[in-house]
């Protein structure tokens, strides 16, 4: 699975700094996000062109996601959710492009993003509710005798967000790219095995094309799911349930 291996880029300087292609594509994803907004919004036209429409729609979609999910307080979290969504979206979509590296297929990257979300939402909960935040782990309307059992379950459920959020993105991206590699190998190996294998090879190629379309869907969907789950966690932190 050479597509997931990290290699230093920019020669000796990259090797010394530990600057791998993963880091390079993170910077490219960030630059693409900035480019979409900067180049798209430069005309400031009353009737927007295509790129300006895309930038405005992106802004409105994420803003409505924040406000609808978190509530009026969601406006304050918009910059964070927008950055997160587009960083992941461009990271996922860049990976579908041939020869590009998918940095979201590494669990260390998704885990780091998840830890940021986790600590932010916990911090927001503590900021808004001070010590009442810990009431989040006490289910309402439960007999006192059951609390020693239910509070640890709630705490574990809360902590499991770190794993579930990071593994979901990582597993989806890695599984898709493994499938692409497997079917790509089928195409080449079957085509080289003789003329009678050309039809199975062509069928594998058809599956590969469908898989690339599916990957684009998964890339977008997983970025959306990560962003909306971030909003839901922030909603829980702001409103406690």
């Amino acid at each position: 699975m050479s597509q997931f291996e990290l290699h230093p880029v920019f020669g000796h300087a990259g090797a010394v700094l530990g600057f791998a292609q993963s880091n390079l594509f993170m910077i490219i994803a960030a630059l693409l996000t900035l480019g979409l907004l900067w180049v798209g919004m430069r005309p400031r036209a009353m009737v927007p062109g295509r790129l300006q429409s895309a930038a405005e729609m992106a802004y409105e979609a994420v803003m409505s996601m924040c406000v609808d999910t978190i509530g009026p307080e969601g406006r304050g979290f918009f910059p964070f959710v927008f950055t997160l969504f587009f960083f992941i979206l461009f990271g996922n979509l860049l990976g579908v492009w041939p020869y590009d590296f998918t940095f979201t297929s590494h669990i260390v990257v998704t885990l780091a993003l998840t830890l940021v979300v986790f600590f932010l939402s916990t911090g927001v909960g503590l900021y808004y509710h001070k010590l009442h935040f810990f009431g989040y782990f006490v289910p309402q309307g439960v007999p006192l005798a059951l609390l020693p059992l239910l509070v640890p379950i709630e705490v574990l459920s809360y902590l499991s967000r770190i794993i579930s959020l990071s593994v979901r993105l990582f597993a989806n991206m890695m599984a898709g790219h493994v499938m692409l590699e497997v079917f790509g190998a089928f195409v080449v190996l079957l085509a080289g095995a003789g003329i009678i294998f050309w039809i199975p090879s062509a069928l594998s190629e058809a599956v590969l094309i469908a898989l690339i379309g599916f990957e684009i869907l998964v890339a977008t969907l997983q970025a959306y799911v990560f962003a909306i789950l971030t909003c839901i966690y922030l909603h829980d932190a702001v409103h406690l349930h």
Partner: protein
Amino acid sequence: MSDDPGDDEGPSFEERLRAARNRQGLDAPPKAPGLSPGDFGPSPWGIGLRVGVELVSALVVAVAIGYGLSLLFGARPLFIAVFVLLGGAAGVLNVWRIFAPGDDKWMQKRARRGNKDRGGAGINH
């Protein structure tokens, strides 16, 4: 044109625009916070993966904590055994939250009613 802002003879432009958009079905209906299972993709694989990840992630966290506590207190199997059970329950709780997002309010209402009824004539269903 009678677009005088002081002219108070009907709903504002924003309200009329919203009403027109609702009539045409252009705006999505307001959604309660929470993900429906369908948000994870058109296929049952997406839902299956989501449920699997939720179950396993709670178990992983629980086993890690149980293992850490066992090492700390030198009681190897005890804490792991307890936390495996708690982690399994937490995983089921996670799955419950995905598939019954609207039921939290129902549970709260039921709990309030139960508290009220506890001093009275018992729980009525």
